[in-house]
């Protein structure tokens, strides 16, 4: 099987390389090239995912690797404009993932762990923020854009780094849980933290940026318009999310056919509404999924419908994420990026351990829980872009660059670690079958 998969992958790559070398005069081929690339990526990434699975790695690592290999910095089969064009799928993918996250969140089973979940998030936030403040202070003179800067600037930058380090990728968590068919207390814990942390991250980031901006740019007055807007967006997203959940529920109950097609249409509508009214699309769909799962008995139907159509979306989403990883930026800043990744892992471990221990969380959660929070992707990237927009100039630019470089590592290492932890605690589908 392995040989056959590799043969097909190589043949497809050869065909794609051949095709991209055929050029015509004076025509814009972006749209057609994107479409061709999409089909190629879908097949090749999935096959690579299937191949790496044999090496005990998660499939999504294969998708990401496929994206990196085909991407602009290795073979250039997917050029920068093509990748940018394909990123339009991101919103659909994230919405579907959010719907899954909410739909997998069963309050009845998670409620016993709510204390541990809350405490873990709290301690993660405190310890990660503190660690980065201390690190930036100690290391300040080795960071070119912070050397000999006043204290308020350093503190502002440190807080921003810290708030970005708290962020994780809900997509990675959901994808690994889905592909491993993981179930159990540990899985519920990671899922619970993922769902709530998504709101916490956005709030913490908004608070931090409101305070840090006047620290870094003294000419900017301290005001909380940004924070207020974010707060309003979160409240509104939750309300619309409940309404969306209600509509999905009605559909599942009274129509119940062609659900995948319906969900796709519904997601498009949600994305459009979010764009028009500045809603948090991930939060909106998480709440919708949560509503269907916990306020009705149609949760199973919803999850099985999503699972029926989500595989291509996952493959494309992670392959494009791989192709978008900016390796030149990483290579320029690799040392600092590695340090940031190391610190983030350490502080996440500490935060999870303390948070779980204080509330009597299981040993598995104390020891391996942190591994579920290492992956970073779209959300962090989006926040990094916001930093750049809010802090024009060298400081904003440099923070974003370093964060993008560290995402490159986290996105590769994160899924592997989470899968490893699931195997270790015995909650993957394979584990369950073996023990049965």
């Amino acid at each position, binding site marked *: *099987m392995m040989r*056959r*998969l590799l*043969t*097909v992958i190589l*043949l*497809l790559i050869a*065909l794609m390389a051949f*095709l991209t*070398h*055929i*050029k*015509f*005069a004076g025509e814009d*081929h972006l*749209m*057609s*090239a*994107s*479409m*061709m*690339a*999409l*089909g*190629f990526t*879908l*097949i090749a990434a*999935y*096959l690579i995912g299937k191949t790496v699975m044999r090496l005990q790695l998660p499939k999504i690592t294969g998708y990401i690797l496929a994206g990196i290999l085909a991407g602009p910095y290795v073979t250039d089969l997917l050029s920068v404009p093509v990748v940018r064009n394909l990123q339009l799928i991101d919103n659909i993918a994230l919405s579907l993932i959010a719907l899954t996250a909410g739909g997998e969140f069963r309050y009845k089973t998670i409620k016993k762990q709510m204390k541990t979940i809350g405490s873990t998030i709290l301690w993660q936030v405190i310890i990660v923020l503190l660690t980065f403040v201390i690190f930036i202070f100690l290391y300040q003179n080795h960071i070119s854009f912070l050397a000999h800067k006043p204290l308020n600037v350093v503190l502002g930058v440190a807080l921003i780094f810290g708030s970005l380090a708290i962020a994780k990728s809900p997509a990675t968590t959901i994808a690994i849980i889905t592909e491993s068919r993981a179930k159990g207390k540990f899985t519920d814990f990671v899922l619970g933290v993922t769902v709530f942390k998504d709101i916490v991250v956005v709030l913490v980031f908004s608070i931090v940026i409101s305070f840090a901006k006047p620290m870094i740019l003294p000419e900017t007055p301290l005001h909380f318009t940004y924070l207020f807007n974010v707060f309003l967006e979160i409240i509104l997203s939750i309300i619309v999310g409940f309404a969306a959940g209600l509509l999905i529920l009605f559909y599942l109950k009274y129509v119940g*056919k*062609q659900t995948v*097609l*319906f969900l*796709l*249409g519904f997601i*498009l*509508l949600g*994305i*459009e509404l979010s*764009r028009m009214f500045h809603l948090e699309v991930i939060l909106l769909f998480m709440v919708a999924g949560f509503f269907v799962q916990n306020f009705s008995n149609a949760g199973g139907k919803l999850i099985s419908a999503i*699972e*029926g159509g989500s*595989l*291509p979306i996952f*493959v494309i989403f992670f392959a494009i994420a791989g192709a978008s990883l900016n390796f030149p930026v990483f290579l320029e800043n690799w040392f600092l990026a590695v340090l940031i990744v190391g610190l983030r892992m350490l502080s996440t471990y500490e935060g999870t351990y303390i948070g779980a221990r204080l509330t009597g969380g299981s040993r598995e959660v104390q020891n391996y829980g942190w591994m579920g929070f290492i992956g970073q992707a779209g959300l962090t990237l989006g926040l990094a872009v916001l930093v750049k927009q809010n802090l024009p100039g060298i400081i904003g630019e440099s923070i974003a660059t370093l964060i993008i470089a560290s995402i490159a590592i986290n996105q590769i290492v994160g899924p592997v670690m989470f899968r490893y932890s699931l195997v270790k605690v015995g909650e993957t589908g394979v584990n369950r079958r073996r023990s049965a």
Partner: protein
Amino acid sequence: MTPFLGLLLILIITFIGARFFSHSAVLKSPLFSGLVVSGIPYILVGVLLGPRFFNFLNTEIIDSLRPLISLALGWIGLLFGIQLRWRNLQRFPRNYLLFTSVQSLITFVIIFITMTAVFFILIPSPFHNLWEAVFILAALGSVTAPLTISRILIDKRVKGRLSHLIQFIASLDSFWGITIAGLAMAVFHQPALRWFTSFWEWILLTIAISIFLGVIFRYLIQLRFLSDEVFLLVFGLLIFASGIGFYLRLSPIFIAMIIGITLAQFPRESEKVMRVLHQAEKPIYLFLLIFAGSLWNYRFWEEIILILFFIASRFAGKQIGGLFSARYINCAFPIPSDIGKATLSFGGVSLAIAFNFQLFYGGATGDFLMSATILAIFIFDEYTALGTLNILRRQGEIR
């Protein structure tokens, strides 16, 4: 409106349409079968949504959703190709295939000669890409749509050798239309900057890529995959093949058809693919119809005479093709000389070929091809429904 909302709107209409299609009792009436089954209402919905009326689907949205059209074209090609299993075809009386091919090719030749004369001698036309247009028009005109005929045969519970032959023709003569249109796109291809500078290289490339993809896919899908994995792989193959066609400006329908034919020779693998393709058959067809309506940039008074020539030549082509085949090809039972009336049905594949041209060449020529196809659907489908009923009644195959 944004492309997302545009797509959503089409999704909703096709979704409701697909449900209506499968549930409505009205559709079973012979009076409506030709009119509705051919999808004319969806074309009209498309016209209303398009730039000519409410402009919900404006030019920008239609433009950004073009890859989806290309995907739908590939879908149609693959679905058609995968039914062409040589072993299955051999089970039918030997001359059925010959009958089908001859009537189709005669229709092609008659439309081709008529439209060449019209374009180059009678009414010198202002269009560009005239030769391409004539080839494509003749190719799409030679195709018989199976939907209306199948509907009549199912609803009236028709059984008999003639209805069997008519169904065979309607199911298979698209092969020639798709092939000729696909080869025409390769022949008239603009040369690339490097390599592929002559038309025969483009023809070879089209066929080689298609067979290559078909063989690779067959090799791959022999492995055991779960149903969602098969869906992903088939979906990926379709996007890839359609994307290649779109990128190289070769017909995605033709490429996908050859892939389908290659796969069809391996029954176990083709069955897996077929299951996936059938899931979205109706929505994709309705999606194409709505798009056709919104893309339909008609110029009635400039085009109407040309379209009438096309319709007349197709009518003549199918009649002469049917008459010639009925007289000279022995199918082991008497075939009425007006069998051509039952093969006039027009629809899906022809529309897809016209779309393909519009997608690549656009302009006034593309608009004309779309107009000709849509108007021909309006005229031929209702006529075919009644014509087929008449012939089959006369032959005693409808009681």
